[in-house]
């Protein structure tokens, strides 16, 4: 059974409780930042900050609006990080769909950072390993909701069975459309096989306003690397080794006695 988070951005009040609950539950070290000209806690996610509310002041239909949306691991069905990860067992997709990092196995190469179409994993300068939201796998394993979900005051965040959440997201979208938000919709991008973090957006035609990529997918170079290039490499390496072996079997080593000399004098002086 696949579980998911539903983020109804229309109910988000940017209170950042989820940020803190995440920090607190995961015993993160807090960092004191510098002023960055915004209400946003920090410009970007960090190895010790897995869940960021992005604040975006935009104008919609001539009126001021302030878009707040949660930014964290999307737990993709087809995860770019897993596709890119070279260390066996370092990233695992659990039976419930959670994409979790196993830090004992992480080698800190950062390929997952490149593979992730949402730019989520972050390298710790101290441990040289990569970190991101675990969907509180320690909590979900014992039947508790992830910390961010539990703390969310406005029910902007819900946790549950993915299909059920998709259904309620559809209902919510219909409500919003009826309420005059013609562009309302669900963000569950197909390019990564759907995400286990699903958004309801007031304006699904512009996910960028929420800091979400329009058409995320596993990068083709990652697919190339993990697919065709592996085959090509295997062919080249095996071809070289076998070719050399059979060359030796058939022709043996070069032997001046047997094989005659090249032309003694240069035909063309360089």
């Amino acid at each position: 059974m696949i579980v998911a988070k539903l983020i109804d951005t229309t109910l988000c009040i940017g209170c950042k409780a989820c940020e803190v609950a995440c920090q607190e539950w995961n015993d993160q070290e807090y960092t004191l930042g510098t002023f960055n000209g915004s209400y946003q806690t920090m410009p970007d996610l960090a190895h010790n900050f897995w869940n960021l509310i992005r604040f975006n002041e935009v104008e919609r239909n001539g009126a001021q609006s302030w878009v707040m949306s949660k930014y964290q691991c999307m737990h993709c069905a087809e995860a770019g990080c897993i596709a890119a990860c070279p260390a066996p067992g370092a990233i695992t997709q659990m039976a419930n769909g959670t994409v979790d990092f196993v830090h004992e196995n992480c080698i800190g190469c950062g390929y997952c950072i490149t593979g992730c179409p949402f730019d989520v994993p972050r390298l710790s300068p101290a441990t040289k390993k990569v970190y991101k939201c675990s969907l509180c796998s320690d909590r979900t394993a014992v039947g508790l909701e992830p910390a961010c979900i539990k703390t969310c005051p406005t029910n902007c965040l819900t946790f549950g069975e993915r299909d059920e959440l998709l259904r309620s997201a559809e209902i919510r979208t219909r409500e919003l459309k009826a309420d005059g938000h013609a562009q309302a919709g669900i963000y569950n991008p197909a390019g990564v096989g759907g995400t286990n973090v699903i958004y309801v957006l007031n304006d699904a035609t512009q996910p960028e306003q929420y800091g979400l990529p329009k058409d995320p997918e596993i990068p083709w170079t990652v697919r190339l690397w993990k697919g065709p290039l592996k085959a090509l490499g295997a062919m080249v390496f095996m071809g070289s080794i076998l070719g050399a072996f059979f060359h030796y079997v058939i022709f043996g080593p070069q032997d001046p006695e047997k094989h005659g000399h090249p032309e003694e004098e240069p035909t063309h002086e360089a």
Partner: protein
Amino acid sequence: MSKNSSRRDFITRSAATGASTAATLTGAPAENASAAHIAPLKTANTTKYTSICPYCAVGCSVNIHTLGDKARNVRSAIVHIEGDPESPINRGTLCPKGASLEEFVQSDRRLTKVRYRAPGAREWTDLSWEEAFGKMAARIKASRDAGFEEKDAEGRTVNRLENVAMIGGCTDTNEINYLLGKFRFGLGILAYENQSRL
């Protein structure tokens, strides 16, 4: 009063909120070959206390998880503070301040000793409670003896003290406020304000 937290918490929470999640759908480790890495729940062996968030007046209930049995030489340590799912007010949710109450209780800036600043001094010095109570009571008595009015100019009994003011209380319980009231009226203090009036 205290219960060991367990899966039961979740079940009561679900029952209370009608949430649709259930333990089985969160991917219990048994069905999960790669779950061995999952850390043990940090609240697994804690004692749970019920409390109320000390910040704003929404009145969210919180569960305080502690380790240590309060034996004579043990000061129990707070491991985690989380919203109480049974509260009809917050149903387990908390705001960013409430969600980090553990930081507040266990802040390394908490005062742990009586600090004293002598007139004109540039630094704090430490004081024992006994010394502090002795000095403070003497100061209060001196000011009260100087300023207490039993009768006003018209000879009416007024029993008041106007050269000492008291402030505070809104960060503390009703009972403390009641005691502060007795303290105040016992001394005869009229100038008494608190945050509710600012």
